[in-house]
């Protein structure tokens, strides 16, 4: 295959684009206090925040998958009046500033919230709890999952489902053994996107769930607090987040592109 030389203008602009992302990372790496790094990294606070981040982000992703697959299916396959409006509403968290999302959650599920009072009555308290942090993370991250899976459902060849039915498979069996495997790549890609977003969630978490080490202080919150007095620790924690996210993104680079 003959390789064409790309247009110079494109290369220059692309290089600027790359610099845009890479320079802040280089800045972070250059200020990292490598001598005290290990100590900072394995301090109890850092490990707690790291563990909590994983628990919250994975729980949020699991919740998003459980609710998101049926939701994506309804959006892709079930025409009903107002579907476009409903879909727009459920993707709002993607463009809403996270803090606004947190405030909305507060007014809905907070102690004095619309539904919070009912939940309180049956003993379910969400603000200031890990469950609340999971809810906040799910709220902002789930739309990424739903959109990806919906796109996968729309682009799959539905005739495979027809074929399965003529072979004797009922609708549930068709969904389990034909539809789900065929949209597997989009489910995977959507889940990773969702997980990455949940991992980095800050604004909604701190507004709705609060900030308490061990309970709601996820890694981004720990970085923010640490920045105030111990920037070296903040940098190390940021690098951990960065490294984990980078590993995941690199590991699924091809899969993501194949999802569509």
């Amino acid at each position: 295959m003959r390789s064409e030389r790309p247009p110079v203008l494109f290369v220059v602009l692309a290089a600027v684009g790359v610099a845009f992302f890479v320079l802040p990372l280089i800045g972070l790496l250059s200020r990292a206090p490598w001598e005290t790094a290990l100590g900072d990294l394995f301090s109890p606070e850092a490990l707690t925040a790291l563990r909590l981040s994983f628990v919250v982000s994975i729980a949020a992703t699991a919740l998003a998958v459980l609710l998101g697959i049926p939701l994506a299916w309804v959006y892709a396959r079930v025409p009903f009046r107002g579907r476009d409006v409903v879909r727009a509403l459920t993707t709002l968290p993607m463009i809403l500033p996270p803090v606004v999302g947190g405030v909305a959650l507060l007014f809905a599920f907070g102690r004095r919230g619309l539904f919070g009072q009912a939940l309180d009555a049956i003993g379910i308290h969400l603000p200031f709890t890990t469950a609340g942090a999971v809810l906040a993370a799910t709220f902002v991250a789930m739309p990424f999952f739903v959109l990806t899976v919906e796109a996968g459902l729309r682009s799959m060849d539905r005739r495979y489902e027809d074929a399965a039915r003529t072979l004797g498979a009922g609708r549930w069996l068709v969904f389990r053994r034909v539809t789900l495997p065929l949209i597997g790549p989009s489910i995977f890609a959507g889940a990773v996107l969702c997980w990455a977003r949940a991992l980095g969630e800050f604004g909604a978490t701190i507004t709705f769930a609060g900030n308490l080490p061990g309970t709601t202080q996820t890694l981004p919150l720990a970085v923010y607090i640490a920045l105030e007095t111990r920037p070296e620790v903040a940098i190390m924690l940021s690098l951990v987040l960065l490294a984990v996210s980078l590993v995941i993104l690199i590991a699924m680079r091809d899969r993501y592109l194949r999802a569509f």
Partner: protein
Amino acid sequence: MRARLAIVTAAALLIAACAEPNASGTPQIKDINVFAASSLTDAFTQAGDGFAKTNFRVRFVFNFGSSSTLATQITNGAPADIFASADETNMQKTVDAKLADGTPTVFATNRLAIAVAPGNPKKIRSLADLARTDLLLVLAAPTVPAGRYALDALSKAGVTARPASQEVDVRAVLNKVSLGEADAGIVYVTDVKSAAGRVSGVDIPEEHQVLARYPIAVVKGSKNAQLAHGFVDYLLSPAAQGMLAELGFSKP
């Protein structure tokens, strides 16, 4: 031909916009960047208006936040003209970084109070009550002046409290209480006063009190040092001090 004309015109406009107007023209407005502790939000907004009345050339740009965050920003090169901190530790950071123009002056002090829902439905009477398990307590994070002061006060009173959250600054604590999400929070008396109607305050006895000292300094390298010093002087003037007292601050 057309394209070239357009480019030249755009460049000319750009240069004109960036250029400093000459002194012989109308007196231009100078921006003063003030980085101040969030507990000074109402105080400085009013002080800024007061100062601008006698000095038309000034426009204030306020950056309110936790003193620790502000100190970090300034020591990393943020373009502040004035820094007003809620404690001396954070001001010391800027002094150590050789970024303080002269010696910082303490222009006000503040005391702590317990913020509760209007009418105090949970009947909180003292710091000791904050240890009650039926109460949802929030404090500012220990890395923030108000958070440290709160822990000092609690230890003075011999109380072990378990906050449900450590907020990023004292205003966030106040908000949680006024929204009804928390039953109590330790804030400054000035915060309780500013949120009158939305929260009620419970006094903390003098033996458990912590005095918060607010130092202020002009940041070295300020482009409007003269005006900045003028504002600092204004804050120490009787007019400003009276305004501060009305808001609940105590004398420096």
